[in-house]
């Protein structure tokens, strides 16, 4: 592991290019990104590279971040909303080593945020880039396993099969039972997988001032939502889209408007709920908020 800490004078990994990928590869990825931004929600095939981290562990997001990041960027990496989960630590360290960039845990301070499974609670601003790690980019994959078929369905904007699936939930269970990877319609044209974020986060994608980029390394696809783009979660007039709700506030900061993790505290059914977004939670505690029930300011 000595090579991983051996850095040259520029603060990057000796023997490797800035941010690991060679410039030709970055250019190839940037081309795919430009196309993705030009056609919001469309999955652009790209020549994903073998990375030194495993497929399925964020290689798509890492390649997108590597293609976007510059020396002056400030990077935040979260997994499940938290900066200190093992894989977030590993990816943040990868860029600290290979690009020597500044890193932060504060949402507001970051110029690039790479995420797995969450969108930060604090609203993003113009100029920020949110990079999603995507396992299965195809929203229709579990309805149609063949890529040749799903590309055809997208080309024809033939999304009946997705509406039927949502309807079947309602017919069988009385409600739409999808709680994450909840499909969205982007810019009125492409049905897109928001990656496995909880549906709680879907509304944050709509008209966001930030640039949202999605990278799927193993499946070799990139897609994007440019700033201020319409993103609508699929639903029905009589069964409108709704997000998760909890009966209690965060046990640490008292927030009632954030996504909560359930933490099991004993083997007798004891549990507490606390913010999944650790920066949001810590920020509220620093501002004087506490576990007092009902304190949602």
């Amino acid at each position, binding site marked *: *592991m000595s090579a991983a800490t051996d850095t040259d004078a520029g603060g990057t990994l000796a023997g490797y290019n800035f941010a690991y990928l060679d410039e030709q590869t970055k250019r190839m990825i940037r081309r795919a990104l430009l196309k993705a931004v030009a056609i919001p929600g469309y999955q652009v095939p790209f020549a994903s590279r073998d990375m030194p981290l495993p*497929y399925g562990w964020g290689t798509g997001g890492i390649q997108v971040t590597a293609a976007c990041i510059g020396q002056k960027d400030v990077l935040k990496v979260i997994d499940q909303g938290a900066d200190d989960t093992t894989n977030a630590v590993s990816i943040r360290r990868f860029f600290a080593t290979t690009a020597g960039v500044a890193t932060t845990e504060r949402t507001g301070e970051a110029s690039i945020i790479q995420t797995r499974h969450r969108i930060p609670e604090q609203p993003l601003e113009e100029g920020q880039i949110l990079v999603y790690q995507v396992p299965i980019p195809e929203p229709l994959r579990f309805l149609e396993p063949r890529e040749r078929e799903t590309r055809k369905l997208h080309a024809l904007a033939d999304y009946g099969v997705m509406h039927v699936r949502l309807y079947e939930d309602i017919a069988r269970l009385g409600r739409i039972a999808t709680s994450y990877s909840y499909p969205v319609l982007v810019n009125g044209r492409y049905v897109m997988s928001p990656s496995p974020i909880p549906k709680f986060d879907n509304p944050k994608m709509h008209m966001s001032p930030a640039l949202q980029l999605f990278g799927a390394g193993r499946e070799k696809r990139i897609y994007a939502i440019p700033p201020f783009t319409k993103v609508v979660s699929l639903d029905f007039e009589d069964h409108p889209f709704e997000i998760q709700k909890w009966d209690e506030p965060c046990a640490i900061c008292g927030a009632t408007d954030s996504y909560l993790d359930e933490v099991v505290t004993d083997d007798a059914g004891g549990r507490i709920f606390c913010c*999944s977004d650790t920066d949001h939670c810590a920020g509220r505690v620093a501002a004087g908020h506490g576990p007092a029930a009902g304190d949602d300011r």
Partner: protein
Amino acid sequence: MYVAVKGGERAIDNAHRWLAERRRGDATVPELSVAQVREQLSLAVDRVMNEGSCFDPELAALALKQARGDVVEAAFLLRAYRTTLPRFGYSEPVDTAAMLVQRRISATYKDLPGGQVLGPTFDYTHRLLDFCLMAEGEAPAPAPEAQPEGDGTSPHVLSILDREGLMQQEEPEQEGEAAADLTREPLLFPADRDLWLQGLARGDEGFLLALGYSTQRGFGSTHPFVGELRVGEVAVEFVPEELGFPVELGTVPVTECEMVNQFKGSRSEPPQFTRGYGLAFGHAERRAMSMALVDRALREAQTAGEAAAPAQDQEFVLYHADNVQASGFVEHLKLPHYVDFQGELETIRRLRAAAADESRAEAAE
């Protein structure tokens, strides 16, 4: 206050130190050298080079040592290294007919020009554990050497059938048409044969074996014969732009398998034999044979325009043959998923509450 357990940098560092300790094992036992792995576990090295898509026995042996003998992990290490290498060009196609064969067998003819050469093979060994190997013995006495016939090269067995017009003609390479390269371009479907052969060449040996086996058991019947299996060194040539003629870079050991399969013919083609093709680095017969079976199955589907069995389904075969991708995605399930799981918990509790309300209402009626 209870704080959710989350791994910090220190936990990761300590885990990796423990891993390094485990890799070394009992320190009173002498350490394995990379050269020992390269020389004495050479078939594992060959497999790592194939699945890692990189011919470098030294680095493959290093990867095996670093990966504690985990072949898939070693292939992953080699690929991650390979991806950083600049690509300065493509070699000329290797001429396997000019191979200096160490092993060459045909199941379709009793004898043939160049002869049958058993070579260093496990075939016909009786699989009895050799306890003598537990004692560190001397190097075995060298095997007797035979003089090769003629110039030592052997014509391809299938060229004999070809001369009689019994083999299906291969599509000749178009001038200026580069072979597909899935390490540089995204995998798109439908794939042509050059692309799927590349995908199979770096595919997981176990997966290829299972797919090939499935075609023998009726899932996409191929009726194969081993036309020829040959193992030996081939020259690799490269045309530097500034010279304009091929220069030999060196030789690599390869295993090549050509399967002969019956084809009953169609309206446009008379009955003939068709070829399933397999090629692998090093000595890798199981891999080359399995690859040839799957190649044939994929060709069958291409001709028929439909895939009747898993081994004939391009997307099924090519997406799932890559063990570095497959193991990454299967093992990513170890990563935290508690945000999604919380969403599922919330949904299932709501559904159950709604169901309970309903049954209470029914009971009250």
